[in-house]
């Protein structure tokens, strides 16, 4: 017998209470997921757009610092193009144009108001355009194997023969994905906000924009909850992670294509018979114009109602995030996507809860 073999010894310590298992599952799952080189690359890559957006924050604050705010505003009011400063130029032109008529406020108030709008739009654009797409990729890398691999390796016995309930198990898996989602959405967006504060002329800007971090978290939650639940539901439906992976990417692609097709059909119909297709008094049903700047559209510059947004998770999440950032305020625009996302979340949660219980009862 080896010297270090102490034999079997009883143990009588204090056990962790209910709920601790979720944390253990999450911590182990994150550690295992992080061993994937592809995931590490994807997460690293997901931070790169933040650098571009940080440049926009810097440029905006620099223009205020250098006293160019009034001249920029005047140019925007006259409809001049500000595209010379990239994404910021488009966002700024639109925002300054909107606030140009508010003459009753002081310049300081005007700057604060504009800053809030510009920052909100930049953060919204950041979360909608690059991060939502990267999220689909990262979740597609991690989620499909989270439950399907447990089913294939019969690892569910590791959990359910121990004091772990199925909801703790599901919560643990959700936490794994949510942490990864947070690493590519919340963390860089908060870093952007912090960068904005640091490059602004005064630290009081932090107090002026203190609601933005909360909005970032809320917008990330709107993005994470339906997508994470949907991805895990797919994973629970099969023992082959590649099938779950295919279903995940197919859903995003198919819904995107469906949304694009229907929107294009609306455009064609509007062009051919505007009087029939669109009531002249109801401009909410005017189809969105075809604007090339994807990031600018993501920033909410396009104020026409996207009536097919509920069809596509990407577009639906975008509308809800726009509502969270205060960019979209029309209930008719927000409600259908919100209901669609809620339906996806509830359905996925039900599927997940049922499927996770199946192996133990078979």
């Amino acid at each position, binding site marked *: 017998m080896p010297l270090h073999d102490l034999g079997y010894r009883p143990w009588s310590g204090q056990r962790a209470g209910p709920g601790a298992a979720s944390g*253990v599952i999450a911590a*182990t799952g994150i550690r295992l997921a992080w061993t994937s080189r592809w995931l590490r690359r994807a997460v690293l890559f997901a931070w790169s757009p933040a650098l571009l957006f940080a440049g926009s924050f810097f440029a905006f604050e620099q223009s205020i610092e250098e006293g160019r705010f009034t001249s920029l505003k005047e140019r925007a009011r006259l409809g001049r193009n500000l595209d010379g400063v990239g994404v910021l130029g488009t966002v700024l032109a639109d925002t300054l144009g909107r606030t140009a008529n508010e003459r009753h406020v002081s310049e300081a108030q005007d700057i604060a108001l504009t800053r809030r709008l510009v920052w909100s739009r930049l953060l919204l654009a950041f979360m909608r355009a690059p991060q939502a797409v990267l999220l689909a990729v990262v979740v597609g890398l991690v989620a499909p194997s989270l439950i399907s691999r447990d089913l294939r*390796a019969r690892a569910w016995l590791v959990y359910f023969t121990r004091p772990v309930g199925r909801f703790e198990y599901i919560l643990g898996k959700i936490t794994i994905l949510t942490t990864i989602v947070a690493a590519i959405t919340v963390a860089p967006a908060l870093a952007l906000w912090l960068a904005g504060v640091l490059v602004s002329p005064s630290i009081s800007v932090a107090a002026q924009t203190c609601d933005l971090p909360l909005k970032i978290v809320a917008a990330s939650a709107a993005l994470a909850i339906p997508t994470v639940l949907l991805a895990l539901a797919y994973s629970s439906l099969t023992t082959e992670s590649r099938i779950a992976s295919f279903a995940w990417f197919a859903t995003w692609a198919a819904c995107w294509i469906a949304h694009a097709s229907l929107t294009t059909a609306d455009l064609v119909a509007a062009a051919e018979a505007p009087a029939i297709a669109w009531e002249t008094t109801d401009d909410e049903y005017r189809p969105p114009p075809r604007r090339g700047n994807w990031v600018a559209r993501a920033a909410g510059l396009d104020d026409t109602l996207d009536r097919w947004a509920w069809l596509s998770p990407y577009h639906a999440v975008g509308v809800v995030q726009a509502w969270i950032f205060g960019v979209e305020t029309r209930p008719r625009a927000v409600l259908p996507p919100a209901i669609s996302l809620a339906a996806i979340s509830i359905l996925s949660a039900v599927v997940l809860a049922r499927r996770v219980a199946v192996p133990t009862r078979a």
Partner: protein
Amino acid sequence: MWTFLRRRGGAAHDNGRAAAEVYGRHGERSTSLTADAALPIRLDSVVKRYGRRTVLDQVTCDVHPGITGLVGPNGAGKSTLVRAILGLVRLAAGKVEVFGIDPAVRPRLVRQAVGVVPEDECTVPGLAAVEMVRYAARLSGLPGTEALRRAHEVLDWCDAGQERYRPVETLSVGMRQKVAFAAAIVHDPRMVILDEPTNGLDPIERRAMLGRLTTLAREHGKTILVSTHVLPDVQTICDRVIVLAAGRVRLEGSLDELTRPVVPQLRLEATGPLDACAQLLRDRGIAATRADATTLLVSAEQGRGLDEVWTAVRASGVTLRALEPARRRFEDVFLQAIARSEEGEHATS
């Protein structure tokens, strides 16, 4: 004499209290009347159906402290029974109690007290052996540092320490079995349930595994429930046996009682003129039959002493090698019980 041997036909049986064998911490074996709640497992008229198929049909039995073998042919309902004990399946009828707790009501409490080694390999791919055992400990509620310390300790005890840093999925079947066993006992459960624990183990490892089970039961007072097809293993380590067939308990009792022959007999092993010895015994009115080339089965009925047997042995000139109470092989007992149950099924249908 055969009051312990209760053949079951599916009807609910009297759950009257039986004397339970209790093992002390130092391995001494005593008999005491235990309270109902202290029984490790009590199953009362348990019925489980999958659709129209009845998998467990009025199963009533107790698991006492010590080592109990759960045996039965494939599809007998053993795995379902284990799942019922863990509260993983919803029962159509009946009641299960584990240490007096209903696992359907408080599954967490039951699973804290139980360690399970499933039949099929179940691992978390990507984890090393020690991480796997530590993970199992953490899931059972052990704090992080303690979990790691215990993981190393039980892996050493299970003789799997040399492979502890290898990913579980790259281990041999036998090594994986040892890791699964280590994961089942790392949180020091009161009861360990094992499904085919010696699968994939070589003869030396198999013996070592059975030794570990015996140590846990005798020295640490654990209750062990072993579900297996390997009947010699059952005969080697089990104190009690439950035979399950077609979802019903066909036989339950202590192994001593079950393997005792219907008529008390002595097994006489000798070399030399065995036939002459047998004839001498018969002449003295003692039934003796030839079991094989070197063995006689001698009736020990009506309190006939050994004197007459000794006299016959000396007179016949055989060289005695062994004289002991005859035991039936458990395999014969098992097959007989299964055959009876099949006859019963045919008669019913």
